[in-house]
């Protein structure tokens, strides 16, 4: 088959999903008595219309790239990591901890330390689910859901300890030291919260692409995702591939949490701003687990979020319309396998 034809075929389903979601959104908007074209133009100007909007879009996209990659690499190995939310929170807490408490004066070193430690935290958190699945066959979906809540609750406990808590009503840490802040990209827009984390995220996408498509390790992960039995026969360690795929994903989600803390909020707060972990699921599904696709779809969802905020502000349409659109896209993508010539990559509780 011609490569371009193959590419078009792969793009067909996501395009249909988007079109379908947009039609439904248009109907909802029209039913509420607003002009869909007006809403669309507000959406567009709020996401891409100015440098400020563009910076907002990319700022929202940054964690979504990382959590999208987190889900995508899990799926490449046949596992559904829906614990990005919890892994992100673990990473965010560790970043705040080290950012506040560790006296490193070298800015680059301090940021790097926080990012790596946050990543390791996320990797361990996801690795627990990976080990339970690979060694004991316990379903990773259930375990990642449970681990999400364990993460929310235990960070809530920790942040309330006198050692971490900034005095006051809100359970939050002190702001991180200036040396631990990720520099903001103020050349795009003066007051933006967009930061150099964006480059980390894009670099991660490139790295994951290289690992998956150019290394034997990545090949093994994809083999396990396609057919664990054949992989085992082919002397690939299924256990190792599964655990590593989960842990790498967790690492990326942990880095996403660190990016939120060091680049945007400056502190950890409980509950931590919610939704990037689940957003990553939508991103990975729409991108069909392709790392470059993840970057593009994350920017698209970032645009929806920042455009949605604008729509919320200037029209009568609540911003939750964006969440509804995301849900419809996921639902449609779920059915998409029906139309697909390719069999689904995921094996849900399938005995080997």
């Amino acid at each position: 088959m011609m490569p371009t034809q193959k590419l078009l075929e792969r793009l067909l389903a996501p395009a249909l999903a988007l079109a379908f979601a947009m039609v439904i959104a248009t109907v909802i908007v029209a039913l509420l008595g607003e002009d869909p074209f007006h809403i669309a133009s507000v959406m567009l100007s709020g996401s891409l219309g100015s440098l400020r909007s563009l910076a907002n879009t990319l700022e929202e996209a940054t964690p979504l790239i990382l959590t999208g990659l987190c889900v995508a690499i899990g799926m490449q190995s046949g596992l559904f990591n829906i614990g990005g939310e919890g892994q992100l929170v673990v990473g965010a807490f560790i970043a705040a901890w080290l950012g506040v408490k560790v006296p490193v004066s070298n800015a680059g070193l301090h940021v790097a330390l926080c990012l790596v430690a946050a990543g390791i935290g996320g990797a361990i958190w996801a690795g627990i689910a990976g080990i339970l699945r690979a060694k004991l066959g316990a379903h990773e979906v259930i375990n990642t859901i449970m681990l999400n809540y364990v993460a929310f609750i235990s960070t809530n406990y920790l942040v309330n300890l006198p050692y971490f808590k900034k005095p006051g009503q809100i359970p939050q840490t002190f702001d991180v030291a200036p040396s631990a802040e990720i520099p903001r990209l103020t050349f795009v827009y003066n007051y933006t919260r967009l930061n150099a984390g964006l480059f980390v995220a894009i670099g991660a996408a490139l790295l994951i692409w290289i690992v998956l498509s150019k290394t034997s390790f990545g090949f093994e992960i994809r083999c396990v995702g396609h057919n664990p039995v054949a992989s085992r026969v082919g002397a690939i360690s299924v256990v190792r591939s599964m655990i590593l795929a989960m842990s790498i994903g967790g690492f990326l989600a942990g880095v996403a949490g660190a990016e939120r803390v060091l680049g945007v909020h400056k502190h950890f707060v409980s509950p931590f701003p919610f939704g990037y972990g689940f957003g990553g699921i939508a991103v990975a599904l729409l991108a069909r687990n392709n790392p470059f696709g993840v970057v593009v779809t994350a920017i698209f969802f970032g645009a929806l979020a920042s455009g949605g905020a604008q729509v919320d502000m200037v029209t009568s349409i609540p911003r939750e319309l964006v969440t509804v659109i995301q849900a419809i896209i996921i639902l449609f993508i779920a059915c998409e396998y029906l139309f697909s010539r390719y069999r689904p990559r995921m094996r849900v509780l399938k005995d080997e």
Partner: protein
Amino acid sequence: MNDVTTVISISLLLATVRKAVPLIFASTGGFFSERSGVINIGLEGMMLFGAFSGAIVAFFTHNAWLGVLGAAFIGGLIGSLHAFVTIGLRANQIISGVAINLLGTGATIFLCQVFIHGERSFSLGQGDRLPSLGPFIPLTYIAFILAIGAAIFSYYTVGGLRLRAVGEHPRAADTQGIKVNRIRFMGVVASGICAGLGGAYLPMFSGSFAKNMTAGQGFIALAALIFGKWNPIGALGASLLFGFADALQETLQGRAHLPAQALQVVPYVVTMVALAGVIGRSIPPGAIGKHYEREQPEI
């Protein structure tokens, strides 16, 4: 030890039951779906739809029972969406569940702002809520009857045997003339109805609807189902246990050295332990998550 004796009281036991009710409804719902072979991690979203629709119908009609019916209806509707997508269109059951949860958080707040002019929460008047019947509101008794009824249904009736059969070994069930996908469809719709009722309990009890008011209880119900070994009586017991942990955590707040979070985390940790098989392993239904088609597809 003095702490313990003063804390364990009638009011703690009553609070345990009240905390357990939404979990009993939703875990019984999960039972119907998962035992028929369809994973339902969308319980959280279905509960949220139930909470919202129950509250909004009661708010506008001033009739609490209509609210309860509305919650059951909308819950069943969302259940049939999950059923249609996963059984009819053979979509991945987990992805569909994730979408339903996301739809629940988005659509309920969206609709709340549309109906209640930009508000993300609203209160019910005294007349819009269910009256107490003894120490509890009527939904409490219904929850227990439902769970016990589900157990009797599934282990003592033909219909229940069929439900379990299509979840355990659909091909064997099919050769006995059982319509596998029809039974699964009914199981998932029943699951939505139960989860909707569990959601409706929340505003009926607290007197208000608020953004994301289920706060993960759908996932705790899923945990109760797993910890209860995919069995309605087990799930009932697990719901009461988790309800007790929650009630105790609230009672102890500020009174004991045990941090509240140590009790909050109990449902999630014990579920992971049960699933891993360290103590009394929970084994899922045989055909859970697998689509069923009569002929082998040509691949």
